[in-house]
């Protein structure tokens, strides 16, 4: 009964046109055409163009006329002889080191806490982990600016109510506290990402390992030191590199909290580029040069990342 298929259908089959399949390379080209255009137009071309701009004299007048005169290394010379640039760079590096370390440490600690599935409260904590990440960076900035505000800020209120201070502390008017305010704001918003990754990695560690260690009479600390930490090493490396590249680009919180102040004490690299290019005297050439220097630094870290994640670590 199955063998005798309807003759009409078999005829239909015969009549059907038969095609050679589109060669995979053409299909791939077709499917990637929009992506390639995007990559070229929005990534590749601008990168080269930024390089081009950094070797030209570009200001408001040149932008209008569309003619940029070649200026050799002049922009780079201006840049490297600008003490504010060096200060911004130093601040950036300091910021990256402090905030990334905090992200790793806090991330690990919280991941360990929420990984404890025998405590019911951990479920709620896990559910809330992404809350800070949901806050738009600029909102985050204002939020902390409000907290750290001298006159009505909630930090001063809280410390006063707890009896730690008698009069209002000027958090954002002091270079070191202003800097720390930015670090805290930034770390608060970005640490959930680390927590998630560590948590995922922790869940990948089989319980038997801990049970075996238990039989060997390992203390909690020893279990962490000799089982958890070594097994988390790859993911910690990943987050170190990834978060470093992102921390180098810190902008929104600076914009909202200090605007680089007091004075220029919290200027960072991205802020330097923004200020030089989009504020009078609109020195876009120098701005491009500073962006390029930043990109170079990030590029080195990025290459490390690509090599590490896409060659060594296999999950």
């Amino acid at each position, binding site marked *: *009964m*199955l*063998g005798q*298929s*309807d003759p009409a*259908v*078999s005829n*239909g*089959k015969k009549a*059907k*046109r*038969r*095609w*050679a*399949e589109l060669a995979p390379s053409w299909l791939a080209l077709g499917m990637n055409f929009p992506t390639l255009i995007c990559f070229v137009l929005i990534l590749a071309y601008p990168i080269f163009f930024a390089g081009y701009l950094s070797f030209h004299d570009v200001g408001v007048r040149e932008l209008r006329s569309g003619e940029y005169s070649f200026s050799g290394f002049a922009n780079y010379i201006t840049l490297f002889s600008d003490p504010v640039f060096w200060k911004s760079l130093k601040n950036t590096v300091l910021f990256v080191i402090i905030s990334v370390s905090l992200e790793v440490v806090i991330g690990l600690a919280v991941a360990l806490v929420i990984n404890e599935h025998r405590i019911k409260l951990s479920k709620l904590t896990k559910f809330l982990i992404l809350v800070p990440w949901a806050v738009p960076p600029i909102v985050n900035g204002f939020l902390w600016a409000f907290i750290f505000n001298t006159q009505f800020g909630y930090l001063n209120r809280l410390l006063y109510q707890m009896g730690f201070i008698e009069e209002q502390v000027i958090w954002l008017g002091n270079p070191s506290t202003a800097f720390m305010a930015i670090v805290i704001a930034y770390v608060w918003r970005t640490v959930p990402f680390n927590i998630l990754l560590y948590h995922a990695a922790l869940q990948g560690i089989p319980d038997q390992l801990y049970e075996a260690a238990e039989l060997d009479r390992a203390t909690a600390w020893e279990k962490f030191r000799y089982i958890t930490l070594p097994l988390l090493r790859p993911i910690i490396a990943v987050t170190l590199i990834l978060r470093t590249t992102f921390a180098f680009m810190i902008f929104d919180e600076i914009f909202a909290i200090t605007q680089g102040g007091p004075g220029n004490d919290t200027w960072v690299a991205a802020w330097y580029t923004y200020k030089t290019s989009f504020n009078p005297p609109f020195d876009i050439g120098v701005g491009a040069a500073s962006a390029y220097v930043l990109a170079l630094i990030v590029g080195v870290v990025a290459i490390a990342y690509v090599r590490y994640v896409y060659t060594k670590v296999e999950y």
Partner: protein
Amino acid sequence: MANVSVEKLKKNYGTMEVIHGIDIDIQDGEFVALVGPSGCGKSTLLRMIAGLEDVTAGTVSIDGEVINDIAPRDRDIAMVFQSYALYPHMTVAQNMGFALKLAKTAPDEIDTRIRVAAATLNLTDYLERFPRELSGGQRQRVAMGRAIVRSPKVFLFDEPLSNLDAKLRVRMRTEIKSLHQRLGATSIYVTHDQIEAMTMADRIVVMRGGYIEQIGSPLELYDAPNNEFVATFIGSPSINLLEGRIEKDAFRLTDGSTLPLPDGLDDLDTRAAKYGIRPEHFEIVETGGVATVKIDVVEPTGNETILSGTIGGQEVQITQRERLNLKPGQEVSVTLRLDAIHLFDANTGQRI
């Protein structure tokens, strides 16, 4: 209804050639099994026939028409995968009807065909279920059903039963065979399991390392293997191969003892060779034996007894229909069925 043939077919992955120019001619309605060790290119060959892999050189044709460049969807071939590859987001009925729907078959026609196929495969009660709600054996049947509703020209199977447990595998084996007898469609069946190949196939293609070692009916391969590889591959427990030399009138084992040679071969040159004899071609005798077997292990399976032991220091396995009361360490005298002896060249492995 179709015959399939491949000619001088080659396949390269990058610079590595994994199939080295093979020829197979499959008749209309034939059931052909492809067997061979892992990595020998069975799946690759099957996938080239299906159009899922490019052909590097040579041709694949159906009914004399070269189909190298025709898209898989236009080849009218159905394939049953090892993992079944059922669409998880479709019910059993939708899975079976998918191809017909794509071919713009009328809905009621699709419906009848699904019902007929489901009835054949005992799936009628499961048509509205999703694949994840089925047992392994049922999924396997859905995969079969999906292939048969299309009534394609050719069926391809890539180890369709290897995910099932032993019992189910035997049952499905019979079901597939009877299905083939009813449908009479050309089928190519890849398997690891030589028993499957032996029991189901009209012809078996033995492959190794991208070459074809032998093509023939199951019994041809069993009775007249072309070479040592085919001889060992077919049959379970596998053939005994004893190392030694062919001398004037006897086969001299490495320890100096001799075994008789078949008649009519007396004029062979002296040379190193292997003496092949299948386990069931020994007979245990009280007197007049031609060799002595020292028994090491006795394994009664119920319908037969498998004896493992040594002849002249080389391991052999012997199967006996009778229930024997033998003890490990005992020595028994045996005769051999001389017409069932295969001699292979020690260097080339070819049959002498």
